[in-house]
């Protein structure tokens, strides 16, 4: 029994003529043309190279923002402190219904913001009596004492000032927090904090997790990015610094972040990834999806591609 022909799955047997076609010549021409075009574009447009910012540049450009962020890291109210997996258990993981792979995989890159971003870097500094006393006061205090200092600090945080190389926290109920913030800001402005954050595990490192997380908690990095139209709500994923073309192929991925429910959900990232994984599966599996695999035949663009073949047939 003859199998029925499915026009979107099967291909007719070709019994027609073959013509000379030099694929090596074609490939060589392609390489030469692409190489020349690449050189031309590089000569005409060059490429962007915005210098990386450091904790040093950040704390000197905006010491108040730095000090506020450092305070949040110490009291555990920063974005990273409350992130959750894979850094800590400080906050809820993203989820959709019962699905929460972030939570299931747990903490694999442990980050304790108070210890890693504030206390340990300060401890690495040459001994100063006032600093040592402040560190001891903080680390030996009970959890409830630390909480009361944190609560008092949170109330006045937005009124922090910086003048004459000094961070001022307008409250007397915050324990050693002002002393710690002053020493940390001084350390940051000198460049020593950049070093301390990467050498905790030894001399060699290529892992910038800690300084990048610290930078991401402040407003400075984000403000620079927003100026360059790279923000998440600015379709930033598609964009590049300056007027360079970016990553146009990411248009659909970044599209979801601009619309509800993705742009207002606490699990927005997970929802976007879930959506994109489904669409990606659809793309990969087009040949097996009835309806979707019929679109080319119905669009009839192929009649333009193979017009010479159809004309000869007539």
């Amino acid at each position, binding site marked *: 029994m003859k199998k029925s022909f499915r026009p979107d799955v099967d291909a007719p047997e070709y019994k027609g003529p073959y*013509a000379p076609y030099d694929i090596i010549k074609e490939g060589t021409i392609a390489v030469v043309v692409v190489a020349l075009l690449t050189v031309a574009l590089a000569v005409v447009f060059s490429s962007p*190279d915005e210098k990386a910012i450091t904790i040093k540049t950040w704390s000197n450009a905006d010491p108040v923002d730095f000090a506020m962020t450092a305070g949040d890291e110490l009291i555990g109210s920063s974005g990273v402190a409350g992130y959750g997996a894979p850094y800590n258990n400080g906050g809820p993981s993203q989820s959709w219904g019962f699905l929460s792979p972030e939570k299931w995989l747990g903490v694999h890159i442990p980050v304790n913001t108070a210890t890693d971003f504030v206390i340990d870097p300060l401890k690495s500094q040459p001994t100063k009596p006032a600093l040592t006393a402040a560190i001891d006061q903080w680390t030996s205090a009970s959890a409830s004492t630390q909480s009361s200092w944190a609560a008092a600090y949170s109330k006045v945080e937005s009124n922090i000032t910086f003048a004459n190389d000094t961070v001022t926290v307008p409250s007397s109920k915050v324990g050693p927090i002002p002393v710690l913030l002053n020493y940390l800001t001084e350390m940051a402005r000198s460049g020593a904090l950049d070093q301390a954050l990467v050498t905790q595990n030894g001399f060699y490192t290529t892992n910038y997790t800690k300084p990048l997380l610290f930078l991401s908690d402040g407003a400075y990095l984000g403000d620079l990015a927003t100026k360059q139209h790279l923000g998440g709500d600015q379709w930033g994923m598609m964009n590049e610094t300056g007027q360079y073309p970016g990553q146009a192929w990411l248009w659909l991925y970044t599209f979801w972040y601009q619309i509800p429910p993705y742009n207002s959900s606490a699990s927005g990232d997970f929802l976007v990834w879930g959506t994109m994984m489904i669409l990606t599966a659809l793309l990969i599996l087009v040949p097996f999806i009835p309806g979707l695999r019929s679109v080319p035949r119905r669009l009839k663009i192929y009649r333009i591609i193979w017009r010479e073949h159809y004309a000869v047939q007539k």
Partner: protein
Amino acid sequence: MAHNWGLGALVNLDHYGHYLNWHFISISVSNLVVMILMVATFVAALFLPFPGRRSRKESR
């Protein structure tokens, strides 16, 4: 804007980009140019005659 090598290019793209906004859509002029070029290239590829017609005719 801090930059290093834009001066080396014939056309300096190291300025803040221009963006076109329509409702919630925001697209850079550069990305739009790339997309338009892609569509134009696709359409051109469909319609432009392909060389070798004579040898294909002779093979029939």
